[in-house]
């Protein structure tokens, strides 16, 4: 794998700090795919995704009850311990019940020592985005555009600079290239034999959320050229992975699956860029285009406006899951749901039934607590599952 990706993954904090130092620019952390990264990019800010770590909670557990997702708790814990002190700001969208509450805890637990203006602290600061629960419907775009405008204004106030339409368009161009390249990567993963292993693909995904997109695009382009030559091949039972979050902790899943003789070929993962399919429209108002693009994300927490006559209830989750299985010739589906990740836990039984009934593909449910030990405990099940399919 590309060295620069690996370096960033090895020490993401160091990488961000170095970038900051070298470029004398600001770095913002963000918590979820729903964050409009382009707006940050347009403001010359490097958006890096906030992830957790395998370490035990040290500070956050005094404030959090044990009945919530440990992944989000781990992110908060790292911040409360000062690991994320290099961030100049944090963006928290309303993605799930716990993430949206982090807005409060972040302000409470993460010491703010940035500059103040008339007693008001400027950086680091926490920006909240009230992303709508519904992706579609008559006024959704209007509403969300407003929220994004407010977000942009807050950013402008904090950074004391204007973010022009030109800035936005520039950022959109960079991100569009990224989406296209990631699209090509996905296409490659449809092939058989598989030109790239699941864990290598994961590294690319993961690194893309940590390094400047320009750099990532450049590296990825080179990588894609090599891959399409088709010199390497990864073999194994083709697995679709649907998971709550896969950062450095849960990425162990890829290794376990590979060791058992499987390969992840497609995924539906929070903490991943896999929700981005299309590019952002470039004609018309850039902010509207960005809003529209975010609303295309069909992750488990969102729902849709339906019409009794045509389609009575949302189908996008199943449609998405199906295309991720069929298009990639997946032979098995693994669902890894972190305890207390409710949206995934509720939709699972229905998706499982559909996969079994309509595609006749076996499904494995794993539940975990966001820890390496937890993953070791499901190793045996993954092995059995892969063997069951592979014979």
């Amino acid at each position, binding site marked *: 794998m590309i060295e620069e990706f690996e370096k960033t993954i090895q020490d993401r904090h160091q990488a961000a700090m170095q970038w900051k130092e070298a470029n004398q620019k600001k770095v913002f952390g963000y918590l979820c795919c729903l964050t409009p990264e382009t707006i940050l990019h347009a403001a010359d800010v490097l958006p890096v995704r906030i992830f957790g770590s395998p370490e035990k909670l040290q500070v956050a557990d005094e404030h*959090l009850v044990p009945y919530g997702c440990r992944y989000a708790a781990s992110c908060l814990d790292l911040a409360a311990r000062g690991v994320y002190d290099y961030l100049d700001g944090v963006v928290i969208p309303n993605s799930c019940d716990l993430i949206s*509450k982090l807005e*409060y805890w972040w302000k409470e637990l993460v010491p703010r020592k940035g500059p103040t203006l008339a007693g008001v602290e400027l950086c680091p600061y926490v920006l909240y985005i009230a992303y709508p629960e519904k992706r579609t*419907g008559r006024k959704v775009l209007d*509403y969300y555009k407003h929220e994004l405008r407010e977000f942009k204004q807050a950013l402008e106030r904090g950074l004391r600079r204007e973010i022009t339409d030109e800035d936005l368009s520039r950022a959109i161009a960079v991100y569009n290239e990224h989406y296209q390249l990631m699209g090509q990567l996905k296409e490659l993963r449809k092939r058989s034999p598989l030109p790239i292993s699941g864990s290598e693909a994961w590294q690319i995904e993961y690194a893309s959320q940590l390094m400047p997109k320009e750099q990532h695009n450049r590296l990825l382009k080179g990588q894609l050229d090599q891959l399409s030559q088709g010199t390497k091949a990864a073999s194994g039972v083709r697995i679709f992975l649907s998971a709550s979050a896969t950062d450095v902790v849960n990425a162990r899943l890829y290794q376990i699956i590979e060791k058992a003789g499987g390969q992840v070929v497609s995924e539906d993962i929070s903490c991943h860029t896999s929700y981005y399919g299309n590019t952002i429209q470039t004609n018309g108002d850039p902010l509207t285009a960005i809003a529209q693009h975010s609303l295309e994300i069909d992750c488990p927490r969102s729902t849709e406006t*339906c019409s009794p006559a045509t389609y*009575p209830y949302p189908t996008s989750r199943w449609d998405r899951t199906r295309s991720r299985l069929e298009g990639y010739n997946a032979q098995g589906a693994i669902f890894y749901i972190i305890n207390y990740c*409710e949206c995934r836990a509720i939709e699972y039984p229905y998706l499982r039934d559909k996969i079994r009934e309509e595609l006749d593909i076996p499904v494995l449910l794993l539940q975990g607590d966001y820890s390496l030990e937890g993953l070791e405990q499901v190793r045996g099940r993954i092995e059995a599952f892969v063997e069951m399919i592979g014979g």
Partner: protein
Amino acid sequence: MSIQQEQRIKTSKSKKSIQTATETWAFIKEDYANGHKGKAEGRPIAWSCAAMDKELYHCMGVLPFFPEQFAALSAVQRRGGTRDESVEKEAVRFARAAEQEDYASYLCGYQRVATGFVIESLRTGDWHDAPLGGMPKPDMIVTTSCVCDVRVKWFEDMAQRLNVPYFCMDRPERIFKGILSTPKEHEVDYYASQIEDCLTFIEEVTGTRYDPARLNECLDWAYKTNNVRQEILQLRKAVPSPMGCADGFGTMYPGMYQSGTKRCYDFYAKMRDELRERVEKGIGQIENERFRLLWYGLPTWYNMGIFNYFEKFGGVFVYEPAYNPDPWPPRRPEEPIREIAHRFLLRGTGMGNVVDSILHDCQEYKISGAVLSYLITCRPIVFPAVEISAALEKELGIPSVNLEGDLVDERLFSEGQVYTRLDAFAEQLLQRGPRA
């Protein structure tokens, strides 16, 4: 501070102290009977949730049913209405059915029970083998994004299973400091559009046209009802407390689920009169009120007797913020939809708001201790628990205790553990003496 063995009262059923509370049951039974009759006559049935604006159904001639309420009902009843303790509670039976389908056991108890009911009914084809004959099969499922993620996904999941039309009213998340604040224009626009779309959705399902005059009529009743409920809340601040949390939860049904009807207004008007009389005569829940408690969170529906637990120590539960309404701004009959939207968006949803409002309530109701019902399966309620207890201690010097369990699934409730905690808490409060 003695807890004599013989005083350990049987706690599965609560003793109701006010007369009106005993009438709730008839109210609920009537609604279920009407629902079954309506269903047979072809009237439209909706399954919906507590935070929804019920007036929309009443003005559209829809009979609403509420899976959350049904789950609570299942937590009380055993199969076939028997009192035989070897027969498990209906809620446990349904929750188990859901868990067998791999719905995780940490999911909201309401969700597991209602989904279990759907699964069982689809499996057996018998929709009536449930408390009060079950919820009639719905023609639509309508939910809101307010309060928790669970209801959005859960209702969507039920719609898929039942193959009925689904609508979600999306309420913008509002995070700010303070308890009440004026919503922004684009937020009101958005929520109003959601209400309009919901009405269109109901029109499409039922064929009934939306009539603003009808909505205004319902809102008038709702408004009057809310005023009466505000009076009730004022009366409940009296010392000694005229009515406790068991009654508070026990009488929330009409207001929570049937707001916008005259029946509902009559219920609370009567209740207010009764309370007023009690306050005037100085009648309290118990004779020697020594300390006043607040119950944060939702009740353990299968064990409402827990609200009487402190009585032997002279403790009374006086207030439960969970289902009680805020005061409403004046009516705006010229634009009823915007009125609803505006009103609904007044309260903030951030954690800071939750903490502030509990502090406020504790002062208003002269609380000396709080029981934080850690209903571990309800994330929105349990998340702020630590912050609340810290703030209570720090700002007001009020101690609190946590209970762990589920709202309807009694398998998660461990008696020995809970009572040890309550006893220790009572000791703690008695040591401090009455609040100045």
